[in-house]
């Protein structure tokens, strides 16, 4: 009877330990937060592009390469026009 009690305590203990183990909790965190899996990281060359904007009269081309060696560029992606941010 006593032995059964000890085994049960041991079993529950192991279960709790498994739940608290860093690897498992990491997995759980990864599932609750979609991974910020970025294709590009700091230090990578930024892919060149050529896009257009409308200046009120004409469509103007803008490429990343036109700034190379001249200016830093902030490329600010936003979700939709007419939203905050």
């Amino acid at each position, binding site marked *: 009877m006593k032995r059964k009690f000890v085994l049960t305590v041991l079993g529950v203990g192991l279960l709790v330990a498994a739940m608290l183990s860093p690897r498992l909790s990491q997995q759980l965190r990864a599932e609750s937060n979609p991974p910020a899996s970025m294709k*590009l*990281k700091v*230090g990578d060359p*930024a892919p060149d592009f050529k896009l257009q904007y409308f200046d009120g009269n004409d469509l103007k081309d803008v490429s990343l390469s036109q700034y190379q*060696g001249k200016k*830093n560029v*902030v*490329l600010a*992606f936003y*979700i939709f026009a007419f939203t905050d941010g």
Partner: protein
Amino acid sequence: MKAFQQNLQKLEAADTQVLGVSMDSAFANKAFADSIGVTFPLLSDWGGDITRQYGVYLDKYKAPRRINFLIGKDGKILELQLDNAAIDPTKIVDACERKKLNR
């Protein structure tokens, strides 16, 4: 985008060009720029090719996620800011000014 506009002078003084990018049409972006007083170009990535190339396309929204890339004069990425952090340009302004001082 408004926050960048407020810091535009500082950024320009630090040799930095600000470009907004979304998958809206160039004309919608111009109307958006006018409505919030943005004077830097808002580029139209119609179809999302560049958004995908930069790996920032979100299926859920069929649009890019909110993200800033600071790209140096050598064409390499200096800073990345994601989602909510991307709305406050202070860090980018600091990085640009720091770079200017270090040059």
